[in-house]
């Protein structure tokens, strides 16, 4: 297959796609396929590992190798795979429940170990497959099947959690902005380490409109912030608003009103502290005066990937001691003979 470049369609399988009509998952699938075509990815060297959830059906729709595993464990399975197969391109597809509730531990350990795999975290702030219970990202107070009087749990901020867990690539995209999503898929693929890409995904059946304010024509300009490396933080209609740092406090200013581009906070993908601050831009963006929700690559940092370190250690052992001699091993140091 190598050599002849594949089209997006070539990554489709013969299985019927079984998400609900209007589900944000479709758009994400499409962008992955499109990005893969652009990247010239090889089917046979690509593997998708997922857990359980609506989103975790993903591997069935990608004509690559794949595994639809068990709930929450995709990160653990992918770690073992990548540990023995540095040559493969490994993708994890997971939901907010799959990766942050039951699979939370595997996710944070994956991030600190930094296997070179890509995590697509479909965050719809709900459990889709089990029909509408709250997830660790559902906002407090939300009424769901399992919280008829409102959620009591303070939600996780997935990107803040990831940074706390030593992540080396942290980004956010939106099902409704396919171009941007595709670009981040490509960036994630480039990164040599664990890439965490959180994708806001609308679940029209159980949590419709969770991200409407971020996608609706009327509100999105003021409620979203599109990060570009080396560029100032601007947003709003015609990019007339900007964000600057007032001491350590981010402040919204108007560019039509005394402030210029030069005053603004310039995005730096390599700055962990600023990335941390950006993950905390999390007020309800529908309320006036609140910070817009950032999208894009918050933070990236190259650190040796786990499988590289592992392979190096193995190689080192070979270099120092040569290919293991089974007879010598079995025999050990102290033997005797009976005649």
């Amino acid at each position, binding site marked *: *297959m190598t050599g002849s470049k594949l089209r997006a369609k070539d990554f489709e*399988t*013969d*299985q019927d796609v079984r998400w609900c009509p209007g589900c944000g998952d479709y758009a994400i699938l499409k962008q992955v396929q499109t990005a893969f075509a652009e990247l010239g990815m090889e*089917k*046979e*060297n*690509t*593997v*998708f*590992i997922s857990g*359980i959830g609506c989103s975790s059906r993903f*591997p*069935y729709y990608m*004509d*690559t*190798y*794949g*595994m*639809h*595993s*068990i709930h929450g*464990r995709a990160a*653990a*399975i*992918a*770690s*073992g*795979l*990548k*540990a*023995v*197969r540095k*040559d*493969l391109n490994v993708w994890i597809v997971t939901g907010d429940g799959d990766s942050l509730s039951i699979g939370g*531990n*595997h996710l944070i*350990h994956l991030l600190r170990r930094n296997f070179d795999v890509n995590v697509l975290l479909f965050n719809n702030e709900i459990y889709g497959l089990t029909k509408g219970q709250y997830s660790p990202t559902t906002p407090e107070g939300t009424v769901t099947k399992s919280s008829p009087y409102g959620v009591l749990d303070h939600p996780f901020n997935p990107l803040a959690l990831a940074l706390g867990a030593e992540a080396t690539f942290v980004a956010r995209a939106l099902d409704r902005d396919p171009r941007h999503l595709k670009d981040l898929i490509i960036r994630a693929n480039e990164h040599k380490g664990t890439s965490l890409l959180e994708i806001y995904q609308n679940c029209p059946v159980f949590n419709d409109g969770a991200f409407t304010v971020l996608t609706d024509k009327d509100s999105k300009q003021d409620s979203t912030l599109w990060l570009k490396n080396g560029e100032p933080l601007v947003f709003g209609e015609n990019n007339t608003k900007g964000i600057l740092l007032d001491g350590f406090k981010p402040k919204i200013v108007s560019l039509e009103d005394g402030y210029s581009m030069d005053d603004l906070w310039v995005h730096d993908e390599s700055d962990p502290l600023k990335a941390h601050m950006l993950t905390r831009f999390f007020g309800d963006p529908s309320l006036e005066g609140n910070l817009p929700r950032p999208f894009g690559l918050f933070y990236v940092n190259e650190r040796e990937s786990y499988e590289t370190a*592992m392979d190096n250690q*193995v190689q*080192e*052992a*070979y270099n*120092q*001691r*040569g*290919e*293991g001699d*089974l*007879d010598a*091993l*079995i*025999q*050990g140091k*102290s*033997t*005797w*003979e*009976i*005649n």
Partner: protein
Amino acid sequence: MEKEILEKKDVTILFAGDSGDGMQLTGNQFTFTSALFGNDVSTFPNFPAEIRAPQGTVAGVSGFQLRFGSVEVFTPGDDSDVLVVMNAAALKANISKLKRGGVVIANTSGFDNKNLKLSHYEVNPLEDGSLDDYELHEVDITSLTREALVDSGLARKDVDRSKNMFVLGFLYWMYSRDLASTIQFIEEKFAKKPELIESNLKVLKTGYHYGDTSETFGTRYQVKKAKLPKGKYRSIMGNQAAAYGIIAAAKQAGLKTFYGSYPITPASDILHELSKHKNFGVKTYQAEDEIAAICAAIGASFGGALGVTASSGPGIALKGEALGLAVMLELPLLVINVQRGGPSTGLPTKTEQSDLMQALYGRNGEAPIPVIAARTPSDCFSSIMEAIRISVEHMTPVMFLSDGYLANGAEPWAYPEAKDLPKITVPKVTQKPAEGEAYLPYLRDEKLVREWAIPGMEGLMHRLGGLEKEDRTGNISYDPENHEKMVRLRAEKVERIADFIPDLKIEQGPEKGKVLVLGWGSTYGSIRMAVDQCIKEGLEVSQAHFRYLNPFPKNTAEIMASFDHVIIPEINDKQLVHVIRSKFLMDAIPFSKIQGLPFTSSELVAKIKEIYA
């Protein structure tokens, strides 16, 4: 002064002292020397449950039991003939394990007031007559050692640390042993500290000469060479053998090994051992928990490596869900359970066979897997190779059962040469489907085994998963009849393994007769000794022992039917008996011991005689 030399068939010595007293080393040296001489040997260390309990307390006592003989010995012995105690706590903890009339060698310095208090003795047991039934030898080992090294210039701490060499030297004298191998050991061990070579050798010889010159010891013993199969031998512990077996099997299969594990006693030593051998293509991975460990191993198997994971009972419980996934995926996977006392955290440092049911049934749904158990420390090597052979050749997860007793026990091993090891055939896909034809990942051969298609192989892309799959295609299927078919196919695949394993065989005794003692796992040695004794006493008793617990060998029912009574001794509450009754609707007489300890031969002999009568 010439001392008389008595001949003995076999002798059991128990070395006991504080964790810091070096009893493990002493025991290992004595063992190696005896094995080298040509005795058969069997050993078992007994570590304290605490990491390092306060010095001088009973909780801090470390023991090493060793049996050597001019006959084959299969267990480290029931009660010991000789008990060496370095302090009062060691006596307290172990006196019940000494035969009536046995020899106690007590280090008198270890019975000072402080030690007596720490071990909660009100009066000195060396003096109050409580040891009247034993042959007590009091030796001030500490002082004698210090005297020997008075001019060494060593620090007191280093001097005291070598007192175990005195013990060793003295016992070498007592059992007419050669010092050579220990001398060599000391020279190698302290190669970089010549002053310690000198001091240790000095104390070793002092101990030896002490026997010669001291008035108190009238008797020396001799244990002749055993008639053992010819060959090259080494001593091996169960966990070590398991680790080597994994490496060997992977090599025989031409696979890389991925060992995903989370530390737990008594399984961790396999991880420690394997992590030393990266130049055999072994990758070890300490996962964040047991679930991650098995999942990583599954991922590795998906990637074409030999995925292995190990734990002990509580950790195996955690792996149940993922093991079910592996059943669905039909990929090779070895799961090792080094069993310990349960339930729950139970008795982590003690042995038990109580996870058999969990091995067979500890998963949701119909999820049968082969189960294989090792019988002796060295048998862990070949049993685990066999488990891996089945896992790879039959594309199925396999549970390998060991236990704390095997894991830490040691025995001489007539080790094989690499070239003689069994080959393992890997059912990797060799051909892509013809142009235009879809690849069928769940197509099966006559063994009902599917082929192994590995990422990177062109044209074989497929998706696996835990939802029920359609026959042949492996696509998700909710079809009722397909589900029943697949459940039965998976079960039948495991059943058919019975066609590829050896029959159950009678290990000793007649092929049919009065009593069969039928065991599995680590009870092998005790049963062997007990049946041997019964046969020698003229009883019609036989032994058979399972390696394969699922599926059972095909002749199992036939063998059972050839005896009037079948006794099944187990270190659990009749688990195998339950399975046998259910599979064969045949009864067996259970004999349970649930004390975190192996059977003693005498317990078994008594039970056999009771049934025989």
